[in-house]
């Protein structure tokens, strides 16, 4: 009890010195605790984080009026949307001497020419992650999206596969598998992708954006559609836990989504000075490298290369070669009509049931039908009896 009171008082007093707090709205697992600690020491301030698992979620929360965030880490299509909405503060380049560390090919992209508002943070690729031993055992290919979409492979792993709970990501994977660009807005192609997904759905265990790392590590799931740095974590966790299997991940040969996540400063954030400090801190080669070393994030920072562990620097799934890069695409934001169509397709995808569940519902429907019939029959009987004068 006393401890509780103490904490309460402590927190109230701490709340008073909220001046030196930096609010960061970031992806789950996208910065390591060590980095946070070092930043806090270097700036003598506190970093408070909130998390999101999907760009859409972040944009929606911001559209719903979330304010007070100094820093956000949107992927380029979400950054594009934010810039167009005038929601971001222009960067003060004089406070960012480390900007020169970024490889030139990652700067000056079409959504933010001149990098007025954003600075590259890291990139991640949406790939297929898997339990190596199980895949070998079941003789399943791991370099193609087919293993997630084709029933002939899926029967072997039924109930052991998860896909991302993200309309854009899943549709993009399906589009690439069918050979289309992920930014193609032809509704017919979308319908093909949708049908592909619905056909594969009964074999999937779940649509999961957050806990699939854990499920892979524990061994409940053998195959997952997810982000490269998440699989890096899973692999590390599995190793640490002494599992008898290893986790690995690959970029499918048909191509995949690459997301460039950027640091931006939101207009409503109170501490743009601390925000700039953080950005500059993360642009330092060593800190950026820490991101890669600890969470396996792709790195656009040239100064980070010497600090990156060699086995990571040579991992083609984190630093893909020229050939593979050709098949990687950046997502573009859709306009509202397209968003609506996709949202409807997503509802259809979610709703079309597999066979198992529909028997449950059919049975339920029969029961309910019988019940309604019985009630109506009873009411009619009562009416009849009343008219014959039998009711009291």
């Amino acid at each position, binding site marked *: 009890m006393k401890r509780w009171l103490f904490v309460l008082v402590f927190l109230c007093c701490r709340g008073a010195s909220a001046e030196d707090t930096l609010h960061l709205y970031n992806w789950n697992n996208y910065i390591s605790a060590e980095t946070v600690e070092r930043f806090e020491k270097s700036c003598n301030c506190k970093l408070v984080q909130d998390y999101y698992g999907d760009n*859409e*979620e972040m*944009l*929606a*929360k911001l*559209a*719903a009026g979330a304010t007070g965030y100094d820093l956000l880490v949107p992927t380029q299509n979400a950054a594009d*949307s934010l810039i*167009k*909405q005038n929601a971001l503060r222009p960067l003060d380049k004089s406070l960012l001497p480390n900007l020169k560390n970024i490889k030139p090919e990652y700067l000056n992209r079409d959504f933010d020419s001149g990098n007025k508002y954003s600075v590259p943070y890291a990139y991640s690729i949406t790939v297929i992650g898997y339990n190596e031993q199980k895949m070998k055992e079941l003789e399943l290919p791991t370099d193609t999206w087919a293993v997630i979409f084709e029933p002939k492979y899926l029967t072997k792993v039924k*109930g052991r596969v998860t896909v991302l709970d993200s*309309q854009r990501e899943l549709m993009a994977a399906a589009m690439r598998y069918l050979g289309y660009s992920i930014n193609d807005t032809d509704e017919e192609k979308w319908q093909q992708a949708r049908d592909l997904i619905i056909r594969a*759905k009964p074999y*999937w*265990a*779940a*649509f999961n954006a957050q806990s699939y790392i854990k499920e892979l590590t524990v061994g*409940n799931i053998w195959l997952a559609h997810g982000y490269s740095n998440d699989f890096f974590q899973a692999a590390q966790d599995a190793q640490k836990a002494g599992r008898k299997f290893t986790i690995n991940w690959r970029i499918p040969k048909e191509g995949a989504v690459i997301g460039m996540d950027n640091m931006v400063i939101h207009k409503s954030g109170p501490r743009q000075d601390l925000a700039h400090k953080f950005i500059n801190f993360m642009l330092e080669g060593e800190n950026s490298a820490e991101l890669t070393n600890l969470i396996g994030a792709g790195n656009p920072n040239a100064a980070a290369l010497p600090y990156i562990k060699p086995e990571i620097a040579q991992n083609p799934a984190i630093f893909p070669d020229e050939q593979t890069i050709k098949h990687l695409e950046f997502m573009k934001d859709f*306009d*509202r009509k397209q*968003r*609506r169509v996709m*949202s*409807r397709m997503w*509802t*259809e995808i*979610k*709703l*079309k*049931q*597999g066979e*198992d*569940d529909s028997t*449950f*519902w059919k049975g*339920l*429907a029969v*029961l*309910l039908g019988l*019940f309604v019939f019985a009630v109506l029959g009873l009411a009619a009987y*009562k009416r009849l009896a*009343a008219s014959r004068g039998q*009711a009291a």
Partner: protein
Amino acid sequence: MINLLNSTRVTKWLVSGPPFLYLTLFFLLPSLIMVVASFRYPGEYGGLAPIFGVEPGKESGLTLETYRFFFSDFIYTQVFIKSFGVALATTLICLLMAYPLALLIAQSPKKHRDFMVLLVILPFASNFLIRVYAWMIILGPQSAFSLVINHFLGLFGIEPVLLLFSSFAVLVGMVYVHLPFMVLPLYTNLEKHDPVLLDAAQDLGANAWNRFWRVTWPLSLPGVYAGSALVFIPVLGMFAIPDILGGTGDILIGNLIKDQFLGTRDWPFGSTLSIMLTIAVLCLAGITAIISRSGVRNA
């Protein structure tokens, strides 16, 4: 000044004024905003587009586009039907479970009744998410319950079934969370029944079943309707239970609405769905009112 305070009219406004104002501002007005929002265009980046034209070439004003979108594909009506089905199933199961309990409490000696009612209310007192979470534990693949069920199914050669993240789990969760809402109105009604009626029926030669069916049940109908309304309507709007306990296909209206506001950023469509839900609830309330009134007349 004192005379003013003593006037009944003034006191009337003083007393009913503040809550009236508060609710107008924070309940009526928001509801109206929602109605209007369902007729607006979605903003380019989410939210709503302005009603009065700001830039040429951009849409503004009011439109029926969102309603047309709702009816353009059967899928949305399907979700509504599904939600009604779940609500109906939940109500019926709650009724079947709550009625014997309410009957028992009503027939118990007075000194026990309050305690037994309290026992029913207490789980309701715990946080709703906790009650849902409890079922995550029970229905999880590694729980004792799951193992027993799957072992049993295995005896018949049926493959192990995942109880969690399924429609079954959603139904269980819904029933569990709403059961007390069915018990209380039933009990309030049943408690008022005069035991003399049952004794008279028995003297006239009615057996136990007839005593129940022709005396207790008709008299308890108002309680049944009240309890059903208290269960049916909230279930229609639920999203947390399908979200936590449901599988991928377990989307109800509540989930759709939530997605529009906190996912797809399509606020007009979310408002349209909310309006359709409101209309559905109002129709139901109307039907219930009509039935209960006519029921009272016949009883």
